[in-house]
């Protein structure tokens, strides 16, 4: 009787250990962890409590190709690259532009979309073109913290003493500040800009572009195996037109 009890206890223990071991080893190879900042419509945003958008769909297709399940985590834009670099996440799709500084920390895949930095102003604003920002208006420029809009504006305008940059956690916060006249303009990517202008009356996007840039997927520098797999899968999706289909679905639908 005693022996049977002991045996069952040992068996239970073995079972539990196997369960844990199984969990950790299986999940590592079967799940593709993606981080993003879901404040960036139409690339990533919340709909019915789910993160959807162009980046989410492309990631889903890549995961399917690799036979993995996709798991998306939403975090501050400031933290997404650090999350990939430290290995907390496998990859980042966040409308992320390839820049030399970022390339020091992560590997970028081929580019899957083009982004344009534009300037949002209020109707009747004294700012009528991008060049006005470099004049002597000493404007307050709103950006989302650590986006390329922030990096450009800081380097080109604030550091030159031509104006000040107000850095918000989210693009939507910067737009809210613009609406209540706290700042004079917002520099942000074209597609989210369209969404913001549609949602808020009295805002316009300037015709001139601030910068054109390439969106890409960021992966950990050490995990070259996964990098190759993701890069190849993405290239295939671009070649067979899937990526374009997804982009068209969100952007050119109207």
């Amino acid at each position, binding site marked *: 009787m005693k022996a049977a009890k002991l045996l069952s206890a040992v068996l239970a223990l073995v079972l539990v250990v196997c369960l844990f071991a199984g969990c950790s080893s299986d999940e590592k190879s079967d799940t593709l962890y993606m981080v993003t900042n879901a404040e960036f419509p139409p690339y990533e945003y919340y709909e019915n409590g789910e993160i959807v958008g162009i980046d989410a769909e492309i990631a889903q297709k890549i995961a399917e190709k690799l036979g993995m399940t996709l798991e998306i985590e939403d975090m501050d834009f*400031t933290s997404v690259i650090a999350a990939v670099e430290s290995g907390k996440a496998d990859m980042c799709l966040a409308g992320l532009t390839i820049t030399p500084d970022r390339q020091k920390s992560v590997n970028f895949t081929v580019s899957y979309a083009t982004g344009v930095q534009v300037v949002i102003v209020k109707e009747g604003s004294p700012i009528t073109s991008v060049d006005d920002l470099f004049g002597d208006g000493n404007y307050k420029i709103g950006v989302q913290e*650590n986006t390329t809009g922030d990096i450009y504006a800081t380097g080109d305008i604030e550091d030159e003493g031509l104006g000040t940059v*107000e850095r918000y*956690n989210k693009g939507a916060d910067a737009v809210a500040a613009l609406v209540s006249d706290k700042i004079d303009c917002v520099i942000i990517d074209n597609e989210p800009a369209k969404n913001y202008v549609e949602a808020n009356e009295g805002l316009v996007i300037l015709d001139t572009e601030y910068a054109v840039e390439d969106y890409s997927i960021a992966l950990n520098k050490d995990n070259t195996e996964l990098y190759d797999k993701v890069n190849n899968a993405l290239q295939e999706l671009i070649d067979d037109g899937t990526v374009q289909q997804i982009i068209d679905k969100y952007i050119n639908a109207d």
Partner: protein
Amino acid sequence: MPEFLLDLKEQFIFTFIEDERWRYLVTGLGNTLLITLFAGIIGVVVGLVVALVRSSYDKTADGARMTFGRFLFSVLNWICKLYLTVVRGTPVVVQLLIMYYVIFATSRNGVLIAIVAFGINSGAYVAEIFRSGIMAVDNGQTEAGRSLGFGYVQTMRYIVIPQAFKTVLPALANEFIVLLKETSVAGYVAIIDLTKGAYIIIGRTYKAFMPLIVVALAYLSLVVFFTYLVGRLERRLRNSDH
């Protein structure tokens, strides 16, 4: 120099010296101190007024006749109670965001809005600290003051508040330390404070270690220095105990 020290030095140079990124921390430190100092002053003034209203009302409640003056006083007391409930019942970040986007929607001076928001927030906590101090002074002190011919205000001013202040000093210093650290949420409304400064550097360098450690040390040194000052003040106030 050992390897890891060289590595740290290199990281330090990359994080702070390159592109003059230390400027974000200097600006941040300035704003953090500015907001804390002035919010602290507003907090003490608001807190003292509210505490006086609340404690005076409670102390004089027994057998007070319902005159018009008494009625006004009870309205004032009720407003103070409402203020305490609302401010202590909501998070300071939410209050700051409401101030920034709703109440002072047209103001372009973020630091000023933060000073007001944190000042009003701190005032509620300081009020209760002062009230506890005032209530802790024995009623005999008030009676003695009154029987010596002092008016109510004079009794408060010369007898009750000085004693109360000594009692509440540790709690007050505590509230000031909390306030200093609470200002770290000012970054929510695009103010560059110490924390936001670190955050910007993290976003530029993609390295979290250096900026976070340096900012933590900065807060720590500020608090240690302030605690030392309060310690000296307490020692001085104790001189009158003999």
